[in-house]
Each structure stands twice: as C-alpha cells, then as structure tokens.
C-alpha cells in the first residue's frame, strides 16, 4: 500500500524526534506500507507559526498540501501531531472559506483543490486495525502502559475529527490488540507544555510532572506516545518533572513511541527502532516486551544511570 508521507522537521535530520521517524518508517514498512515522501516539503510552522502569524502558517501548509496533492497523495500521513494539526487546520479552513483558499493560494503560488487529507499515525493504524490484528495480535506481554495522546490528536475536534476529545481510546485499543494492558487514567489529553521546553522550562516541568504522577497513580509501567514534543518533555525532562511533582529521585518511567511498540510486536530488532537513544533507559522494558531476560544496559545508558 502506498501512502503520502509528511515526516516534518522533528522526525528528520537527526532532530529531537529522530526515533519516531526511524521507527515509523521501519514499522509501517514491515506492515506492508510504502511511504512516499512529499517532494520538497517545508516546515508546518509548528507552535511558533501558530502562536504568532496565522496567515503565514496557513500559506506554509497550503504549499505542503498542494505539493502532496500534485503528487497524487489523497491521504497524507503526518506522524507528528503538530504537523498533522497544522496541515489539517489549513485544509479545514480553506475548504470552508473560499476567500482564505484564494489568499493562501496566491501567497504560496500553488493551486490546492482540497484533495489531500492529513492523517496522524494513530488514525492510519486505527483505519487499518484489521491489518494490525492479523500481523501483530497478542505478540507482546501484559505490560501496563499509559497511552498519552497529548493536545493535538483530538483538538480542535472540528479539525481533527477523530476519537473522543476528552477520553480517546484508539491508541489504547491498538496497544490492547498487540497484547499490552493500557491503564485507565486521567491525563490522556492534558498538555505537556509542548514548545515551551526551552523558553519556559518551569511550565513544562509542572505540566509534565502532573502527567507522570497521574500515570503512576494508575499503575502504569511505561508511556506510549505518538508525538515528538510529548516524548521530548516526558523523556528528556523526566527528572525535573518528577522533582516538581514530588515523585522522588528514583522515578523512572520509559517512554516509547507507538511506532516502536508496533515494531517490536512485528518482530523488528530494537536497533531498527532506535530504542537505545532515549534518555530514560528502555533496556529492561524492551527485554520484557521481547520476552527475554533483562540484559546489560548499553554503555551510554549505563554511564548515565544513577
């Protein structure tokens, strides 16, 4: 199956979310998808664009959508929900408002016929859950995981038009199919602080700390996420966040991408999914997920373990 692919900046160029790009490409490849990258795509503008200039952001995304449409991509996978939401928002706005379409087309010097629909990874897998069931059912042990969706998989609801806004269940159900045990918890769609990770780290520590505490209360052993910003904040800032929430110094909860979980369920090797480059060590968890005895940590992780 061929599908349009918008990787976005975070998943490419060894950027912060490189594991998400590597694992998405590997897992979807193993599932039988051929990812066709949008030619010469540009940044969606992310939080900065959304926060400061809506006309700019809309035009940047109309350019991307028009390029995808011209390449024949009626469905466009954007695994990063920031990209997916900005693309979907532009698509939604120009479809509803002919004046915005005309203005954006002129600014972007492109023609867009509203014929390319952006999808998140969760939505793509949900649409093909029968395939996931056939290939990956019950391949993983009963590890308790907190499925964390963050803000943008379901918001704004009229744009994303996917799952329940407050208590989504699609990623939980996908994990359940693969054999994991998703916990019922309270903070599935609470914000992690997103793009404030550099400009206001105290806000990120506070918000992420609340999410860590909620996952622990629910008895989760690990997070499953589908957003590079959520991952960066939960994984790279876990120490600060746990301290802010008073969770103790030894708080340690691995954060896996949904694509990494899927890859493991499909029998891919951890190296092919870049499981060794997270901040919070995943060695023991990955060994359990693969049904192995715990193995020694890699040198980088061992030297940073406290």
């Amino acid at each position, binding site marked *: 199956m061929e599908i349009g692919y918008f990787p976005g900046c975070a998943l490419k*160029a060894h950027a912060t979310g490189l594991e998400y790009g590597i694992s998405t490409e590997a897992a979807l490849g193993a599932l039988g998808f051929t990812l066709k990258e949008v030619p010469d795509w540009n940044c969606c503008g992310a939080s900065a664009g959304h926060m400061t200039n809506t006309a700019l952001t809309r035009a940047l995304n109309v350019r991307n959508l028009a390029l995808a449409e011209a390449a024949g991509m009626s469905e466009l996978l954007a695994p990063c929900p920031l990209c997916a939401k900005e693309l979907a928002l532009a698509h939604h706005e120009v479809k509803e408002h002919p004046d915005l379409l005309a203005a954006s087309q002129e600014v972007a010097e492109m023609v867009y016929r509203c014929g390319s629909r952006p999808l998140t990874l969760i939505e793509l897998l949900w649409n093909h859950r029968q395939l996931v069931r056939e290939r990956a059912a019950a391949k993983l042990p009963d590890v308790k995981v907190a499925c964390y969706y963050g803000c943008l998989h379901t*918001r704004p609801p009229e744009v994303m038009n996917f799952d329940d806004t407050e208590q989504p269940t699609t990623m939980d159900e996908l994990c359940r199919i693969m054999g994991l045990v998703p916990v019922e918890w309270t903070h599935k769609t609470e914000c992690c602080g997103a793009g404030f990770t550099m400009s206001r780290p105290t806000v990120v520590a506070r918000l992420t700390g609340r999410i860590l505490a909620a996952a622990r209360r629910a008895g989760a052993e690990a997070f499953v996420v589908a957003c590079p910003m959520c991952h960066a904040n939960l994984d790279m800032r876990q120490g600060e966040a746990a301290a802010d929430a008073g969770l103790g110094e030894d708080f340690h909860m691995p954060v896996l991408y949904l694509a990494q979980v899927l890859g493991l369920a499909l029998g891919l090797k951890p190296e092919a999914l870049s499981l060794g480059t997270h901040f919070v060590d995943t060695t023991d968890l990955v060994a359990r997920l693969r049904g192995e005895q715990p193995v020694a940590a890699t040198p980088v992780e061992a030297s940073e373990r406290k």
Partner: protein
Amino acid sequence: MQLQLSRAQVDSDWKREVERRLGRKLADCYQCGKCTAGCPVSYEMFHPIHAMMRLAQLGRKDEALRSRSQWVCVACETCSTRCPKDAEPARLMTILREMAQEEGCVNANERDIYDFHTSFLASVRRFGRVYEMGLVAAYKLKSPLRRGPQDMLTALKMARRGKPGLFPHRIQNVAAIRRIYERTRLQAQAAARAESSPEPHGESH
C-alpha cells in the same frame, strides 16, 4: 478581577475589529469560567483566559494587548473545546498575540517566549525547515549570559545520542518560502501609537 469602568476606556473600534477576526460576538461569552478551570497554565496568569475574554468584551484594548497571558498560553485548545458557547477563547489569544505585534506592545516580561518563536520562524525562513542547532544558538545569543548555560547537561546527553544533527536541511525552493514570509508579514499599524509605547519591540520576523 476588579475594573474601574469608564466610557473613556472602552475602545469600540478595537472591539469590533476583534469580533471581525474572531468571526463572532464577544457577548457570546457569559463568563462561566469553564475555560479557566481547564486551562493547564492558568496558574501562571494574572488575567486567566476568562478574564481576557472579559477585557475584550469591555473594549480594554491596552490591558488586553499588553497582557502576559497570551504569551504564556500553550495553545492546547482545551478552552475552546470545552466552551459551552463556542466563544473561541483560544482564537482570541491568537488574535491578541498578532495584534500585540502589530501595535508594537509585546509584553517585555515574556521576551523568552517571544524570542523563541521568532528564532524558530527565522530558521524556517532561512532553510524551509527548522534547523534545531541553529535555532537554539540564535535563541541563546539574543541573551547569552542568562540563556547560555541553560540545559548544557541535556545538550551533552543529546549529543551522545546523535541529536540534534549538526547541519541544516535546506529545501530546494527556499525562495518560495521567503516570498510567503514577505507576503504575510504582519502590518505594523498606527506607527505613531507604537512609538509612544514604553517597550516597543513588536517587530515582525
């Protein structure tokens, strides 16, 4: 929130402009406070989101545009999603951010947040995609003494994992991106008013 009400402080033209951009009447909001109740960062705000709606309803342009609240907003959209009247508080925050830049009155206390946004967009303008290493360098260089040392340990840990890459990814048609930026530059309105503002630094990227 306590406000001294006087007709002199109501800017009706501004209020109409906000409503035009919002696409609905500000009076739709009946101040139930549900937006603030669900806002993850209301604890950081002197004027939480329902109070910002109130300022707009009352035409209090200066207080609204100079507030820090719109910059602390994380744009998670929880407020608009839960609003029982579809009053679109999240969109109001976006409008206030744009207007504050147009009028040259971005709150100087939120310089970190604003600088990060502009550094990010400058990187996209230059390469067509974000170049993380360059973005971080540009952001830190705008205030090197304070921002320089921040997150050095994290940077070291990232480097050991091959993140972020050393070199930018430049797209082929960067010229098209530059033209998009030129055509969507925010218009600085009422230059005279911006000059009299105490902290004029709302230059657009």
